[in-house]
């Protein structure tokens, strides 16, 4: 995220948290006045009051990780934020508050029955990474295997469930008006609650580890079931650097192109070949290596597609004919009918526009065009966001598509940051 304090994201976040912030400072003002009384000068009171308020508000905010994720998905759905803000908001990662070593130990003991030092030959008390919903520690098993142990912050699942209970109540009017369809909330709740169960994530890792094996440039960790529960996940250590650190070493264009190509290949292999994809490809979940290999971590959100959806995607991708034609309309209608829905005129228009302005540009369908698409230019990203929000605002969008949009947004953000040049259509064509 940009460092300046005046980016649209910051403004939006500040606005969103103003309510909590104001309440927090007011509370601290009353309490401090009661405590300090006239003993200290008014001026000091004022400065400490703002400082305390700020800290307390920070603490409160960290509790709202799941709510943030909810907000991310919803802001896309409802279009209440400007496009630029949305892009940055989507690239934020949900983070749980950090755990100090004592709390971390309590969590491990509650989960695995023993202290981490009793389980592992070596265990680093300080985490090396923040994960969604928790933190990750490095350890070595008694069999001398280097592992990453992901530990969940206590009470997350209940927090998510409570957030949704609250949200369902306050969003009643929006549900009635169709701005936030109930099935979208259901889908989100199901996904986000699923992410709090690390056993499901372990299943996802095993699934992808097996299915992605044809791609030699991808490394997926191995799960250690004997040291894993619903709240602790132990997996083999995957090497590589996060995008930001990777870019700091100024990788040359060739390496960035190769990585970009691999990322696109990884994405379409999942989407079109497996019909299942890693739906939270925030760049924090990718690890990059100098040999252009990619390590995948964090499989909390995996989404599977049905055969009908897969068929539809294969039909529309690289559609070579006229996208305003009745034939293209039929393809779209068939898909909507398969989901028991009717394709409305605004949705149809939005889909055609999306397809024309974004997909035809990034994935030119002509067979004889083998040029590389250059992701360095930001236009493609703003096009994507613009078209995606337009589609979502029609209120006639498949709820599954929310997760695909999240995945695409993550992919395009990463490709843009890499400034990669990629033979997009050639890759997609392989899997059609």
């Amino acid at each position, binding site marked *: 995220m940009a460092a300046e304090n005046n980016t649209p994201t910051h403004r939006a976040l500040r606005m969103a948290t103003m309510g909590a912030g104001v309440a927090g400072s007011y509370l*601290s003002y009353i309490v401090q006045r009661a405590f300090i*009384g006239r003993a200290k000068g008014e001026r000091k009171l004022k400065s400490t009051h703002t400082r305390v308020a*700020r800290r*307390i508000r920070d603490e409160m905010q960290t509790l709202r990780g799941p709510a943030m994720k909810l907000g991310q998905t919803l802001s896309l759905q409802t279009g209440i934020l400007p496009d630029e803000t949305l892009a940055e908001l989507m690239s934020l990662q949900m983070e749980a508050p950090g755990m*100090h070593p004592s709390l971390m130990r309590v969590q491990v003991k509650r989960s695995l029955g023993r202290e981490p030092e009793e389980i592992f030959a070596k265990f680093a008390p300080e985490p090396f990474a923040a994960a969604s919903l928790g933190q990750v520690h490095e350890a070595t098993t008694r069999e001398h295997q280097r592992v990453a142990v992901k530990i969940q912050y*206590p009470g997350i699942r209940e927090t998510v469930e409570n957030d949704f209970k609250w949200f369902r109540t306050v969003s009643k009017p929006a549900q009635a008006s169709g701005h936030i369809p109930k099935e979208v909330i259901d889908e989100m709740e199901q996904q986000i609650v699923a992410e709090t169960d690390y056993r499901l994530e372990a299943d996802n890792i095993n699934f992808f580890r097996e299915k992605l094996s044809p791609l030699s440039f991808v490394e997926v960790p191995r799960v250690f079931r004997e040291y894993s529960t619903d709240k602790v996940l132990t997996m083999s250590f995957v090497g590589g650097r996060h995008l930001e650190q990777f870019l700091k070493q100024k990788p040359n264009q060739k390496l960035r192109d190769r990585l970009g190509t691999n990322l696109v290949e990884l994405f379409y292999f999942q989407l079109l070949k497996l019909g299942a994809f890693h739906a939270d490809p925030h760049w924090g979940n990718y690890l990059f290596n100098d040999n252009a290999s990619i390590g995948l971590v964090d499989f909390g959100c995996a989404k599977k597609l049905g055969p009908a959806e897969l068929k539809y995607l294969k039909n529309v991708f690289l559609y070579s004919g006229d996208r305003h034609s009745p034939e293209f309309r039929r393809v779209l209608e068939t898909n909507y009918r398969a989901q028991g829905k009717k394709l409305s005129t605004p949705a149809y228009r939005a889909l055609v526009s999306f397809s024309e302005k974004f997909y035809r540009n990034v994935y030119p369908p002509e067979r004889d065009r083998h040029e590389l698409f250059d992701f360095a230019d930001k236009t493609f990203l703003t096009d994507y966001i613009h078209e995606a929000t337009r589609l979502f605002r029609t209120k006639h969008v498949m709820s599954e598509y929310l997760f695909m949009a999240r995945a695409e947004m993550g992919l395009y953000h990463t490709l843009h940051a890499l400034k990669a040049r990629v033979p997009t259509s050639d890759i997609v064509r392989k899997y059609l």
Partner: protein
Amino acid sequence: MATKPKSTTKAPPRTRSTKTRPTGKRAQNKEAIRKRIVKSALNLFQTKGFDTTTTKAIARKAGIAEGTVFNYFRTKEDIALSFFEEEVDHAIAAVRDNPRLRKAPIEEKLFTLVHSQLEYLAPYERFIGAALIHALNPASHLGPFSHRAQQLRHRYLAFVTELIEESSPKQQHDALSWLVPEAFWIYYLGVLLFWLYDSSEDKEHTVAFLDRSLHVGVAFLTNGRR
């Protein structure tokens, strides 16, 4: 709650178990019986309820004569108090005897303190709920007006004060300092109530609540400075 523990500028002496129990075979034997009485009594308090448990039943459960119980404790309330003293000793030791905590931030020390208390109390949850109500009776030995209960509370809060003072530089002490132990006691009772009513699996909510509330509380304590 009328008397406040003195907050001295000098670090107070280390508070450890006040009773140093004699060693030796006879003494060991006595200690074993004492422990057996406490354990049997607590099990009965938990299963049968505090009010309905008699010293007779306690003696029977411990496998000793009723008279022997009185050699150790005057009343069943004394037994309960003795258990709470052990609980506090245990929790203080959990913080003091853990070398990992020596340089830990205050939140972590207080977390360990309260969490060890709750762990200690966990097998007797039903009784703890009853004891809280019981303590409201002004005549109760468990209540805030009993000398022994007050002593225990002071020892506990002196330890909390000691932890806070050793973790914060002197100049940060201000008008708030003297209030801290009192505030902490109310906070502790709040955590206890939260824990008693926590229906989440394995009382996981209490752990999260304890962690978050301590972060917020310490922010207050240090006026937002870290």
